[in-house]
């Protein structure tokens, strides 16, 4: 483990330049460049807001703001987009970088780290854009938002854990790469991002608790929409699950790394 960190540290230059290159490559040939990273999720929010606001806005209790539903959507989307992006990219990471892994010697661990760095950068941009939109809609930044820092760590750990396990499996069993995007869609709709949690029928509530993204998205809602302290115990459980998955992911990655090059 220590060795892993040490090799990562000695390749920090490569990690940073990869993240920067990926970012600047986006600006290279498109006019709006990196802005597309923000426009995409915001457009998605706008569509949902347009289609569903009349149906669902009434179900959101306790907020005065008439744009409440849009705020609600955006905060959930912020958490989900980070989660989905990391998983999606980790899923095909080793296959995409197969050629590089076959030809060059470098610590493999840098690959997921680059993905995380670049996803976090997008997330940060999206967050800034979200703050701007919130301000426009009359919701100003507040201190409770500091809670987002540990939450971001939790989402990242969860996503990297799942992503690494799936990414490694995908190298050997390619069906994984096909089935996961579908499962992610299902998972998205089983997490209260688009709809408020209180419309879930009681008999499904118990299942909701098994969803590690549920407490996270709820905490995002609490912080960003309601400006209140999130439920710490629930998040604690998710963090424990995240760390366990992260360790599993790292373990599988370590065990599989020598064999990956053989089958790529």
């Amino acid at each position: 483990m220590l060795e892993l960190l040490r090799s990562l540290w000695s390749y920090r230059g490569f990690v940073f330049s990869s993240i920067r290159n990926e970012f600047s490559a986006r600006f290279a040939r498109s006019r709006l460049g990196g802005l597309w990273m923000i426009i995409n999720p915001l457009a998605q929010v706008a569509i949902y807001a347009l289609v569903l606001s009349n149906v669902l806005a009434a179900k959101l209790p306790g907020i005065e703001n008439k744009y409440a539903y849009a705020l609600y959507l955006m905060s959930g989307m912020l958490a989900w987009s980070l989660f989905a992006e990391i998983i999606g990219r980790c899923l095909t990471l080793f296959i995409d970088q197969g050629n590089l892994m076959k030809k060059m010697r470098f610590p493999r661990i840098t690959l997921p780290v680059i993905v995380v760095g670049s996803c976090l950068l997008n997330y940060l941009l999206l967050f800034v854009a979200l703050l701007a939109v919130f301000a426009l809609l009359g919701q100003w930044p507040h201190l409770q938002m500091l809670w987002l820092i540990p939450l971001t760590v939790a989402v990242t750990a969860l996503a990297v854990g799942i992503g690494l396990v799936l990414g490694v499996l995908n190298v050997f069993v390619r069906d994984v790469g096909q089935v996961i995007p579908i499962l992610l869609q299902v998972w998205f709709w089983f997490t209260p991002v688009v709809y408020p949690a209180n419309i879930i029928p009681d008999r499904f509530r118990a299942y909701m608790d098994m969803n590690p993204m549920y407490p996270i998205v709820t905490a995002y809602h609490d912080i960003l929409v309601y400006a209140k302290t999130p439920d710490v115990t629930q998040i604690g459980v998710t963090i424990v699950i995240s760390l366990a998955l992260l360790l599993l992911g790292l373990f599988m990655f370590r065990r599989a790394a020598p064999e990956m090059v053989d089958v790529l």
Partner: protein
Amino acid sequence: MSLLTVSNLGKAYRVYASEFQRIGRWFGIPTKPSEEHWVLKHISFAIQPGEAIGIVGQNGAGKSTLLKMITGTLQPTEGSVQVNGRIAAILELGMGFSSDLSGRQNVFHAAGLMGFSAEQIADVIDDIEAFAEIGEYFDEPVRTYSSGMQMRVAFAVATAIRPDILIVDEALSVGDSYFQHKSFDRIREFQAQGTTLLIVSHDRGSIQALCNRAILLEKGTVIKDGRPEEVMDFYNALIAEKENATVQLRELEDGSIQTRSGSGEATIASVTLHNAAGDPIEYVSVGENVSLRISTKVNCAIPELVVGYLIKDRLGQPVFGTNTHHLGCKTQALEAGETVSYSFNFAANLGVGSYSVAVALHTTDSHIARNYEWVDLTLVFTVVNISQSEFVGLAWMPPTVESN
């Protein structure tokens, strides 16, 4: 202490009945692979600092696999590779280049991939730019480069900082001939400074010019490890030996090794060198007219016989070779028991030194098709300079000179 020690190295590609068995293995569940393909087995050698080693072998002999395990991209199944120094490999140039970034940005990125820090790269970036010689393009996106320019930048990065071991795939040509010379010079320069070279090549010339040792791989094992001339002779014989004949090695009095191979339908009876007067000679003076006489014996009926010879220098590099097919001298439909003699008359426009003659009997224009017999070192002669003005080099090309 040796720079690189490869001990009992082996690589197997494992196939499992189900991929879940493979995954189970990571978690300690004992499963057996359904198939194992061993592509390399029992490879052991050690390399000392400053050596230059050529790795030769036919396609599929396991050269790339071996190099990949030495560079560390591939993990050995058994045995180990121990490296005491930094390895740089010029196997695949331009890996990790991103087409939308400029040459300069890509240099930083690619060097980072090789494990250099930004400061180390900043120190050598000017050298890299100067070495690549692509001018203004260095700050343009790589997608606007010609493939040669991309190679130039990639080679310049790969060799920016002198490694302890440099692995070169010789099949890889770096840009135009000007740059090829330049990159070759850099490789030689590294060698002079103590870098160990590991060269993969099929080209006898470059192996013998650069290396002081060669390793021949065949079907995943080292079948020969020794002086380049010896190994290359053996390798040549091996390619000729696709048919059922055998390769024999015989140690000559001076310790060098003669390779004899072939299917034996025709054999070489004698090879001698004569001067203009017809007397056999061992010493030839520069520019002297000599005659190489080869007599052959036909052991069973063959449709065609082509006799070729190759004069090699002390290092085994080919100096001149040709055969009766190219010279337009045809001997066809030969009966068993016939003997045919040939005289090749030429002026020995060679530089001072020792030369050897390899002779081959075969059909058509090369010894690959049907090889009756191939013998290296049939004859050794020495060229001395008695009558000509002083010169250096392998060839005698007497000039006239004027000054004004």
